[in-house]
């Protein structure tokens, strides 16, 4: 993990972009097909895929997440808002 990722705070927009990129890669669709207001299950994300996306976000944000976070915040917009708060509040690395 690079120093930048741990050292620099990511904005909500950057986190949202990260979610979109990860979802697009997992679902193997282009990024413009991922609407940030569409629910994850409508995008077709099954529970195994939730785990893949979660792992990538954990890696990039230095956070510990659970799959429940995805059910409690079921769109990119909601998840990014929630993650941005947690990301900002996390202890300095």
């Amino acid at each position: 993990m690079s120093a930048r990722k741990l050292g620099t705070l990511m904005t909500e927009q950057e986190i949202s972009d990260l979610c979109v990129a990860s979802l697009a890669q997992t679902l193997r669709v282009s990024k413009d097909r991922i609407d940030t207001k569409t629910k994850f299950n409508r995008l077709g994300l099954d529970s195994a895929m939730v785990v893949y996306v979660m792992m990538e976000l954990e890696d990039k944000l230095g956070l510990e997440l659970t799959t429940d976070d995805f059910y409690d915040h079921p769109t990119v917009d909601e998840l990014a808002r929630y993650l941005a708060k947690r990301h900002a509040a996390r202890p300095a690395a």
Partner: protein
Amino acid sequence: MDRFSSLVALLAERAELRASERAYIFLSDRGSEEAALTYGELQGAARALAGQLMQRVTPGDRALLVFPPGLEFMVAFFGCLMAGVIAVPMMMPRRNSARDSSAAILANCEPAIALTTSAFTLRGDLQARFARGGLQWLAVDLAATRTDHVDLPLPDTDAIAFLQYTSGSTSDPKGVAVSHTNLLANSEMIRLSLGNTSRSTYVNWVPLYHDMGLILNALQAFYVGAPCVLMAPNAFMQRPLNWLRAISTYKAEVACSPNFGYDLCVSRYRGEQMQGIDLSNWKVALNGAEPVRADTIQKFIETFAAHGFQSSAVFPAYGMAEATLLISGGQRGAGHMTRTASRAALQAHRVALPADDADAQTLVGCGRALQGERIAIVDPERLRRLPAGEVGEIWVNGPNVARRYFRNEAATINGLHARIDGEDEASWLRTGDLGFLDDAGELFVTGRIKELIIIRGINHYPQDIEQTVQRLHSSLRQNGGAAFSVPDENGEEVLAIVQEIERTERTKIDAEELKGLIREGVTDQHELFARHIELIRPGTLPKTTSGKIQRSLARKLWLDARLDLLSDKGAD
């Protein structure tokens, strides 16, 4: 191994001779020990449960086992065996899942009681989901709370030990009736094939409601008297390297997974997370429950050899619930064998040398028939046995093959009591899978006749998915859809759905909206991503003259891009 009349008799002996040794250990998501059961504790808790069961239900009644990951499942399973109650392991329904996907199974087995943990008896939605007349809930605890003495006769060896439903939530449910005889026979076959002893510690993440998790892991470890370390399936999915860490920590000899689990370990490999992990004690890395892929094995060996993983531990295998579990396997320490064949010829159900590199497909041998069992390759239409080197349907005969499906006579006769034309009266299991045997008897699985969709080791019936789709919206034509699997860029199976639109609706619908609805419905109800969805014109889905959906033809049309897509001519 000594002969026991059932696993109940074996548990009684274990509890007497090795009461304080640990049978099962459950790891938390962080890898620490969360719970453990010795043989003595298992026997005590299972006996207490059996006593409670006998006060409430009658031997031969069915009990649903609906458990979150943990050891309570094992207490419930053995408690049912002791009480002569037929256990029916079920998947825990997903939290937000919209519909009761188990209705057909419940209608088929008519359970009298449902068992779960104390915490989950409080979950209202669980009870609502399984709501049906007369179903009572009973909480199962690890500690034996009651000590009333109850007389528990040993089970009749031909009695049904448990039902293993082979998926099929809305369509014709098939519950394999596994007898005590089947269970013991397959346990012994697995022991011999894997070369297990009481030192063969297991580490298992495969869910216990899945036959691989239960028979090949939890019950096999118990059978040979080795500890079985269990972890939650989700913990594995999130951090697959923790599975490898547990294998190292407990010096496990045996750990099994469907093919995708090995891929997951490779894709989640992080050098720094592998520190201190030594895989050199791992003797059997069984790969089964879905097609075994040569490139997966190769990548796994390349990635983990530096951490002590030995290629000789690779153990491809083939099995299914109808044969209790294992049908074929290799030999401990022998590694795997591959064979290169022509892809085009295999698609035509023939084995031939590849024409060129592009035509070459590497097949992985899944071992040979087990002790006391026979495998035949049979022409699926003429029912004649085929010689070595020819592709046909894989048939199995042996003491591990179940005699029947529960309350499903048609499926029993067709699937479990088949006869080979021109041979004796032996009764065979028709697997629905295609393959061939080489001259030495090594089995190569090459495809499937049955229309089952297998993704990440879980079986899905296309009929169930099609019905889900057609219930979503009135414009989606009844009996006008086909679900099947197609290979993705990496050769892994993904789900494709084609669905007809009602004639009267086809100019009014929003195709993207409907596809979204289908994706959502299939995700929620089947835990599957519908990677490809095509809406087609009414009356264009291939069907037989009697109206039966031709899924393999639909699949071929999809692959050749020859479907009559709505979007192509939607504006007419």
